[in-house]
């Protein structure tokens, strides 16, 4: 049976992990490759790097990080942040990324999703959707796509956009609630459920995880295929193993393979 995926996410800037990662056995907590190895050893189901490097010149550093991670970790790696062209995707895949996440470029030019999926296959094209609730109290729920870290409204309906990019060939959607991101208050479950039920491709819930119940809720209430979290793992609040045990105890199907040697 297919298992629920638990995905730690690392924000990477100029080749370093932003916010830091607190693992006891980590030599260099700011090195994304060291963090990736620790998550690999802990049994994470996938890993996500979100590159928030501002300058274009520093982007080359990311390729090196992806390359060194792919050499050391034998699990799927998704890389996102600033992906705008077919060349960007090709370079990341060649470096060792398994999936590439497209955000702003998918909003400004949805046809880029089709082009990317046709060229590289839907299996490696993730569309990252940042959505914010725009409906008022008492109104039916409505969410809009926001870009630029949640600052720029686009007027695009989130559910319609999710359907559109899935139809264009996105193999998976990474859905972040801008209202919840960083709050530790849990996913926007109504949003996750609305999108997950609207598309046939898997949806990764993201934004707002503060405890292990939130992970369970993302799957059970939100109908997400995978759950993503950052700070609860980085700061050592919980380990991947604890989270998986908790989710399994709550009745979710989790992968808990021993990390045996060859």
């Amino acid at each position, binding site marked *: 049976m297919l*298992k629920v995926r638990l995905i730690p996410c690392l924000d990477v800037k100029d080749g370093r992990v932003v916010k830091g990662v607190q693992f006891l056995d980590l030599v260099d907590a700011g090195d994304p490759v060291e963090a990736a190895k620790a998550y690999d050893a802990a049994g994470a189901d996938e890993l996500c790097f979100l590159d928030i490097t501002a300058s274009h010149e520093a982007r080359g550093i990311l390729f090196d990080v992806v390359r060194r991670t792919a050499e050391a970790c*034998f699990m*799927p790696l998704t890389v996102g942040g600033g992906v705008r062209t077919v060349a960007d995707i090709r370079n990341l895949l060649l*470096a*060792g990324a398994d999936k590439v996440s497209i955000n702003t470029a998918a909003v400004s030019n949805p046809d880029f999703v089709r082009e990317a999926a046709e060229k590289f*296959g839907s299996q490696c094209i993730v569309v990252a959707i940042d959505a914010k609730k725009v409906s008022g109290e008492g109104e039916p729920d409505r969410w809009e796509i926001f870009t630029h870290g949640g600052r720029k409204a686009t007027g695009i309906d989130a559910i319609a956009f999710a359907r559109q990019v899935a139809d264009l060939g996105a193999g998976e959607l990474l859905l972040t609630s801008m209202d919840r991101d960083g709050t530790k208050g849990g996913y926007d479950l109504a949003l996750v459920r609305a999108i997950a039920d609207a598309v046939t491709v898997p949806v990764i819930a993201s934004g707002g995880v503060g405890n292990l119940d939130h992970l369970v809720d993302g799957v059970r209430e939100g109908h997400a295929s995978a759950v993503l979290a950052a700070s609860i793992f980085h700061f050592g609040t919980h380990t991947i193993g604890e989270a998986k045990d908790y989710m399994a105890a709550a009745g979710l199907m989790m992968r808990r393979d021993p990390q045996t040697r*060859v």
Partner: protein
Amino acid sequence: MSVAIVDYGSGNLHSAAKAFERAAREAGLDQPIRVTSDPAIVAAADRIVLPGVGAFADCRRGLDAVPGMVEALTRTVREGGRPFLGICVGMQLMASRGLEHVTTAGLDWIAGDVKAIVPSDPSLKIPHMGWNNLRQHHPHPLLDGIATGEDGLHAYFVHSYALDVRDPEDLVASVDYGGPVTALVARDNMVGTQFHPEKSQALGLRLIANFMRWRP
């Protein structure tokens, strides 16, 4: 002893090569890994790996575009009995035909068609993406030491199409995804995995090491 990973413009060659190097190192096997688009190197290798991601027709086109490659594979694998491992679309290319978007001829090493996955439960997502358990139908040396079944190890899948084998003898393992989905096929010196061993942590590294020890 050497392993050739066929480069025909498709697949995560870097990841595949690194996983083979790691598996060789951990299993104490001295087998240089070469990523190559040279049919002569492929023909001279002791073991051949055909990776592949994307659409069936694109991958077939890419393979055909490398002069002499299909001929070299047919000669050394199909006729010469050299150990061969196809991964994901590289495995699907072993089939008679691919029915993804258009009908495309495969290498026809394993009889059957590559068809869209249609889960019996319509709420199941497509692609079939993530970690699933193998259900073993026949013993095979590539699964030596790998626990299968619901309590066994998991393999990483990402695909919307699957190989529907004509001869049940060719089906070594399947997974359950709203019905059985082909996971591992084998015939003589040829093996194909729908999942990605290079991304399947413990199970994957063990399977790769088994492949490098395999003497069909």
